[in-house]
């Protein structure tokens, strides 16, 4: 089975506008959609481009500058009034950028689960038939603003304590919180 791990950030800047380039498996409209949702959540919490994102990954913590285009940011909230969904999709934007920046995974496969998209990670895309074999699952979870009982640590804890048999898929959990903002990447 594939082992999930994270590496050091090569460059401490995360530009939401580069999601399309960093995640080429996304269509341009999907990349823009995820990016805009993330910006809505960040602006909702009073953040401006350049705000540091506290990242905990591989047992270490660091700060990464989070950047986005502020020109469009002011009008986006009208298009994305549903903050519950914005949190879900916005978390995907940041998680996928962090995967690109902090992990050795280069192949990202997608699959539908209900009305949401699941992501599977692999270090190389070698098999054109057994597409998901030798891949790890990426579970993305978003929090608009941490509150009592709804924190990154609590959410990570509930995922850690979930019964998970050894034979199950290796899973990398990404939890993104827009209030601070902060993000955690951890294998469970």
């Amino acid at each position: 089975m594939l082992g999930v791990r994270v590496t050091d950030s090569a460059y401490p800047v995360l530009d939401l506008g580069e999601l399309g380039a960093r995640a080429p498996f996304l269509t341009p409209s999907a990349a823009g959609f995820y990016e805009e949702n993330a910006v809505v959540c960040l602006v909702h919490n009073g953040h401006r481009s350049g705000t540091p994102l506290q990242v905990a990954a591989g047992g270490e913590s660091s700060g990464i500058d989070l950047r986005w285009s502020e020109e469009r940011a002011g009008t986006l909230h009208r298009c994305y009034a549903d903050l519950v969904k914005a949190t879900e999709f916005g978390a995907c934007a940041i998680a996928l950028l962090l995967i690109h920046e902090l992990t050795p995974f280069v192949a990202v496969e997608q699959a539908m689960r209900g009305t949401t998209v699941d992501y599977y990670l692999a270090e190389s895309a070698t098999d054109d038939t057994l597409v998901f074999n030798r891949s790890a699952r990426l579970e993305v979870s978003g929090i608009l603003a941490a509150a009592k009982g709804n924190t990154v640590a609590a959410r990570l804890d509930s995922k850690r304590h979930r019964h998970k048999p050894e034979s199950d898929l290796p899973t990398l959990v990404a939890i993104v919180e827009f209030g601070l903002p902060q993000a955690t990447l951890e294998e469970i």
Partner: protein
Amino acid sequence: MTTVRELHNRAMVLAQEALVLRSTDDNETAIALAREAFGLEALAVRQIPQSEDVEPTRSILCQSAASLALQCSEFAEARRYAALGLSGDPPRSIAGELLQLLETISFHEALTQDGIQLGDEFLECALTGPAVGYGVVGYREFIDRITQITQLLDRTVQRLVGSAYRRAGRRPKDAQPFVPFLEAPQRGSFSVTIRLGTREGEMAPLFPSAHDVITNVLEGIELVDSERESELQTRIKDDAYYVNFVSLTRNMAPDGEKISVVQLRSRDKKVSLARSRTSIPVMQRATPVEPDVPKHIDIKGLLDFATSRKGESEIGLTTDDGSEYDIEVQEGLDDLVRSYYGAYVNVTGLLTIEGNRKRVLLTDVCSGG
């Protein structure tokens, strides 16, 4: 031959576009794209060889195909691919999700058969206070508030379409365009989500949208919470609807002992109802000037049905010492009173005595403890 990867990648491009379109409410195009994506994903599944090393690819592709089929309401196909995924040797987590998917498929199929569409509009109600534990809540604290909020939504629909206030009797189906559904409670502060389904073909052009109804209710509760009832009264001009709105909101409000805050949230509005129940007055009808001036009364007893009394009054109250009172309910308070039928209550009102009959014009009712 087109490979599994090529077919699957093409399906995912369409699925992503469908996802983006759904967020802009272009559901028709989103469904068409999901249908096309399903066709490609189904082809990809069929190209997976019959061998032992095909997992987890086989079950993940089956889950993906079933999800896409569900998105375009192809229930039989969705069920077939979910079952196909389970028939292999899926990883435990995927197997669990496929079983959940089968339940979701059955639920949506049943909704479709009943002509109901479940939209994205929701109203989340979160309770905080000593009666709320981690994922657990006092039954009455929960049930009463959910009953009040669904009644508020229902009455708001009637008011917004311009129907006269209806005290009793069954309303025609076409005056009930929404069907409430309850989503499983979330842990933490006890929180449930009410979703409004719409009856297919019964949303007349002049009906308010589910979003309008929910927003109207939240704005009204916000006005009550901030003690701006006069502003609410200018919005709800009909006295009966106004009294009904305030009385139901008051009954939902924190009691100061078991529930301290009731938080309500829609997809774009959040309201905290922190004002205590006892501080919310309900507008009283002017007391009629009669030769025998009615006396204010505050009594406890069992609120029961008229049929058990064989009297003219619809409801009555029997006190601990066996005294019986006929209860007259002012328009607008009927939903509140109905929620206490069969319960031990504290009634305040104006008492008039005519011969052997004691009649109370009810001005307030609450649990008798």
